């Protein structure tokens, strides 16, 4: 009040430092990669690295939807099985009903989008907590997937559904179209979140819904759109899933429900909403993939991977809690 504002916005050294929430995962990833690289001869092979990216692809794409949801202070426990349902719709339509592949894909994505929309309606109109709504949807989607597929794997999938399994070769390194799509989706989401008004509104709604509402932001509509778009993203993930495993698998998606949340949290996005970066989720997903791969290379049972991931999640949430309390 006393001294006038300076014209040049200056940032102190501390303000310039990327926050702990993004620095943490980067440091963790660098250490892990270095560790596995030194401990094994197989980790740093291009084959293994592209394998890791393949592994990360599904969780990464689901994680984009999950990040949007968590940024609004919500949660989606149903993402993995909704994806599975979408993949069954796609493959069944294409294989059993003989629907043109493109339309089958479209139907699968429409189905997952509808799931997301219903989640959104229950949360914004019926005012049910996201945790409960998506927990219910987890069971419903699981059941529907098994009923609809009669618990049978669907094979003989046409090529269009496998499109994202095709690879680009850079010398020794192979990258699937799916991985490229994932990176493109992350970039597009980043752009929307940081450069458009609706993106900023999403953060405001997650951070302080009442303040957002009073400035005229239609908070319920923002949340409804977020859950619906998340559903659409799970549909894209379903296509990637089919491309990767070349079948419609009714038991897919079980681990992705929680793994996507793990990726989001490891990537420094706050479970309280309104804080986080989309690329953090990519880091988080890569951390999970690197851990899994590294442990396999070292011949350590995957149980230990669970142990470490669990500890990292708690560490990440503790950091989040600590930063929140500080302010």
């Amino acid at each position: 009040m006393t001294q006038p504002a300076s014209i040049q916005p200056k940032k102190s050294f501390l303000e310039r430092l990327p926050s702990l929430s993004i620095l943490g995962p980067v440091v963790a990833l660098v250490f892990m990669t270095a560790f596995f690289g030194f401990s094994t001869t197989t980790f740093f092979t291009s084959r293994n690295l592209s394998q890791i990216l393949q592994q990360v692809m599904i969780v990464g794409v689901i994680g984009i939807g999950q990040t949007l949801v968590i940024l609004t202070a919500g949660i989606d426990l149903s993402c993995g099985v909704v994806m599975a349902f979408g993949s069954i719709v796609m493959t069944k339509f294409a294989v059993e009903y003989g629907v043109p592949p493109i339309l089958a894909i479209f139907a699968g994505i429409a189905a997952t989008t509808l799931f997301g929309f219903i989640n959104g309606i229950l949360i914004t109109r019926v005012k049910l907590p996201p945790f409960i709504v998506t927990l219910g949807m987890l069971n419903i989607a699981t059941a529907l997937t098994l009923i609809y597929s009669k618990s049978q794997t669907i094979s003989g999938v046409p090529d269009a559904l496998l499109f994202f399994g095709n690879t680009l070769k850079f010398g020794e390194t192979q990258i699937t179209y799916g991985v490229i799509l994932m990176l493109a989706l992350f970039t597009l989401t980043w752009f929307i979140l940081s450069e458009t008004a609706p993106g900023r509104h999403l953060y405001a709604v997650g951070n302080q819904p009442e303040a957002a509402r009073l400035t005229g932001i239609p908070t319920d509509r923002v949340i409804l759109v977020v859950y619906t778009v998340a559903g659409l993203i799970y549909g894209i993930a379903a296509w990637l899933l089919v491309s990767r495993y070349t079948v419609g698998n009714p038991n897919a998606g079980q681990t992705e429900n929680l793994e996507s949340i793990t990726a989001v949290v490891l990537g420094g996005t706050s479970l309280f909403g309104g804080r986080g970066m989309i690329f953090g989720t990519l880091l988080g997903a890569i951390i999970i993939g690197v851990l899994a791969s590294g442990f396999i290379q070292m011949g350590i049972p995957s149980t230990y991977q669970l142990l470490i991931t669990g500890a990292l999640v708690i560490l990440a949430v503790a950091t989040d809690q600590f930063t929140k309390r500080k302010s």
Partner: protein
Amino acid sequence: MNNPKIVMQAKNISKRYGQVTALDGADFELLDGEILAVIGDNGAGKSSLIKVLSGATIPDSGEIMLDGKTVHFHSPIDARRQGIETVYQDLAVAPAMTIAENLFLGREILRPGFLSKFFRLIDKKKMLQEANRHMQDLKIGIRSMQQSVETLSGGQRQGVAVARSAAFARHVIILDEPTAALGVKEGNMVLELIRNIRDKGLPVIIISHNMPHVFEIADRIHIQRLGRRAGVVDPKKVSMSDTVAVMTGAKQPADLGDGLLIA
């Protein structure tokens, strides 16, 4: 300034909540370029009155006029379109977002061009410049508009909320208890800010329970009692104790002599 024009006026406003009568034929008047304090005991209907003026509640009966023309507000957004900005007591800002973002929340400046408008691309640079300009205008000394609001003190946060209203208000600014949660120094900072806004020509309505603040800053004081206006007094001519006596019903407004502007 012999006969300053009436910017905002409310006549015979009533609002009932079930059995409770919150407003019982209340009148209200805001003059151009003034700071009008609204005081009253708990439950006197201050917040109810302000909510009617800001479009947050719709009265059962009565009339609101802006520049002499009758208006009907169905939501706070309606009022805002008419250039009336309200700072609600809490929850006015998004703490994790930057000052610049908070100033333009819900009204972001978009980049020029048809495509940018269609995809609603925000113009961060312009918003930063504008934020700096507004804060300088109001002499709020905050170094960077890119720091998040949670890094600010309580008074500075309130300053951001008030500055946002000032940036967009074309007609009236309404502040509900802007100094309630603040220490002495920070409270004074916000009072200074309110004066700056008034001096730029925008009339301000301020609700407060803090009598020293009210007497320090107000040009006129609207005393609300039992859902109506008990009177409007001139703080330069009426003592604090007499004002409080009217507010609580210990004295009649007529006892105040020529300090009473409107009965």
